[in-house]
């Protein structure tokens, strides 16, 4: 498989490989296209999305000696503020309180000269920057804080600006993080899902990219519920072997009460919880891990790594981008389907020329997905 180097003509019309671990042997794969998604889920299922908007997390600038440097923000730490609910007519019952984030400190990965056109592993290393080193990105200035023990390229970064001025400067100077497989600069709007809300993601939560409102509203008409959470997706690669081996770093998430309730209700009624992307799996399973298997509402941080040995307790299926067998995202799929079926899926995707990475084709791993025509007939109201 090769990476998609540009966006598809239609956001919501890419190839979709359906992988059904519950299907009889030899019948667990079917290729279709993403507009067919509504028929692959059943009334009573729950689709959970990550509503994080993608930040312009790559900043290019210089150190005090004028040496070129790029920082890619990977995590934020700071004061999260929850606002009290309200009884005004605009505030419908069960709605999640608005939250504000003021991440005064960021974790960032340092790169030397160049930009995304060069593969991360081929980028020149950044100049050595001691704690307290000053960086300049246009009018925005920052101070390098502590270095991580993991690698001197992973540092804390404090910007001089705050509040309105910080966000204005970040959005002015920053560009979306992107990689060398792409053919052109990605504008900020091109790395957002259609429901992108709070700017928590340092890279696009790209499994949701093929979802359009046409598809989401068709799912709802079919009786599939939606729910959302926010998960601060970090970087998928840095080119630094020590950092890459540790990815994903702990990531912040927030699960609204309505989503926690919807997950519980879905399972009580025999429906399936379908996660849109790795980040949703990490948030839901990470939250469950912290509360004896139950998804509780609230904010948290998870260092959960989904390996083939991981047994999901909350998530029944996953909509994901297409991934090659060596990618960590693909390893995650192994938690949801057997090795033989996944090997067949990869072979199919290879043969069919599936495109990988954030602008590529899609995969749905969902037990019972290919039995839907029968289910549809029996569960019609």
């Amino acid at each position: 498989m090769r990476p998609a180097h540009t966006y598809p003509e239609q956001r919501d019309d890419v190839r979709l490989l359906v992988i059904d671990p519950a299907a009889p042997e030899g019948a667990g794969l079917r290729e279709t296209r993403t507009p067919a998604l509504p028929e692959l889920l059943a009334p009573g299922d729950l689709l959970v999305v990550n509503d994080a908007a993608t930040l312009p997390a790559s900043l290019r600038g210089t150190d005090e000696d004028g040496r070129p440097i790029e920082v890619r923000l990977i995590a934020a730490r700071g004061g999260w503020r929850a606002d009290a609910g309200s009884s005004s007519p605009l505030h419908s019952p069960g709605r999640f309180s608005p939250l504000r984030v003021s991440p005064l400190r960021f974790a960032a990965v340092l790169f030397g000269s160049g930009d995304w056109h060069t593969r991360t592993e081929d980028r020149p290393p950044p100049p050595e920057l001691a704690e307290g080193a000053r960086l300049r990105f246009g009018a925005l200035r920052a101070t390098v804080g502590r270095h991580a023990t993991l690698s001197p390229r992973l540092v804390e970064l404090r910007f001089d600006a705050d509040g309105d001025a910080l966000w204005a400067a970040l959005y002015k100077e920053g560009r979306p993080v992107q990689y060398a497989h792409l053919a052109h600069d990605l504008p900020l709007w091109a790395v957002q899902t259609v429901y992108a809300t709070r700017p928590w993601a340092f890279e696009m939560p790209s499994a949701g990219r093929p979802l359009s409102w046409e598809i989401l509203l068709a799912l709802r008409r079919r009786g599939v519920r939606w729910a959302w959470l926010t998960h601060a997706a970090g970087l998928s690669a840095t080119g630094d072997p020590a950092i890459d081996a540790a990815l994903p770093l702990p990531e912040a998430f927030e699960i609204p009460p309505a989503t926690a309730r919807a997950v519980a209700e879905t399972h009580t009624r025999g429906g399936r919880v379908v996660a849109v992307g790795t980040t949703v799996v990490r948030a839901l399973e990470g939250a469950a891990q912290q509360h004896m298997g139950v998804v509780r509402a609230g904010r948290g941080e998870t260092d959960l790594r989904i390996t083939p040995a991981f047994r999901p307790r909350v998530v029944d299926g996953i909509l994901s981008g297409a991934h090659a067998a060596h990618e960590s995202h693909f390893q995650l799929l192994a938690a949801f389907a057997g090795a033989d079926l996944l090997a067949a899926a990869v072979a199919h995707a290879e043969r069919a020329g599936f495109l990988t990475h954030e602008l590529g084709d899609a995969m749905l791993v969902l037990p019972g997905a290919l039995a839907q025509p029968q289910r549809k007939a029996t569960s019609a109201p």
Partner: protein
Amino acid sequence: MSHTNGRVDGRVLEGQTALVTGGSQGLGRALGAALTSAGARVVLVARHFEPLAAAVAEIRAAGGEAHAVVADVADKDAAAIIAGQAAALVGPIDLLINNASTLGPVPLRLLLDTDCEDLERALAVNLVGAFRLTKALAGPMVLRGAGTIVNITSDAATEPYERWGAYSASKAALEQLGRVWAAELAGTGVRLFTVDPGEMDTRMHADAIPDANRAELSDPARVAERIVALVAGTDTASGARVAIRVGPPGASAAEAATR
């Protein structure tokens, strides 16, 4: 919540968030003040920093929470940037007011003398800018099942005033776009209103009609209060075109809502 003669008392938007374009002057600035008085946390958007910062400072001095985002809504890249900054500052947006608007060059020209580029600019700001921002913010609203969008238009959208061609066409298109938005958003919990605020004592009005008698024009602050009452209430159907006619100080209020 209580209404007194169509006006709102109290903090009926407590805990809500709002984004207003064209927020540095005229009706937009008045909306910033009225929305924060009603308890909302507000993001004001405008092209120029200084007047915008002044509007924000005025609200903060009065105890309200307001934030400034400098952007030109006609810029294709602006919608994602505005939406991102706004959500970072106040959280998901509950209320979007598309108020930014350009007349084009003044004095206003006959269509026969209007440059095509000036028509294009009017459409880019008044129509396409509002559309892009609505697209960026209505998605999160639909996901959450609640939200309100207000498009500020004008009676020029329906009346063939001479020399107002470019502006009129952009506002007429915005009104029709609003009807389709409202139809498509039916059942999602997201409402859209088209508001014709009437003739107000603003710089834009002075630019368009320099010799107008200001004593006959509405105070934008009173119009803003009526818009707050509209969005805080639940009795106006989504898709409605609401004409607000507060008239000059002392005049009795009149209002008409039509589909």
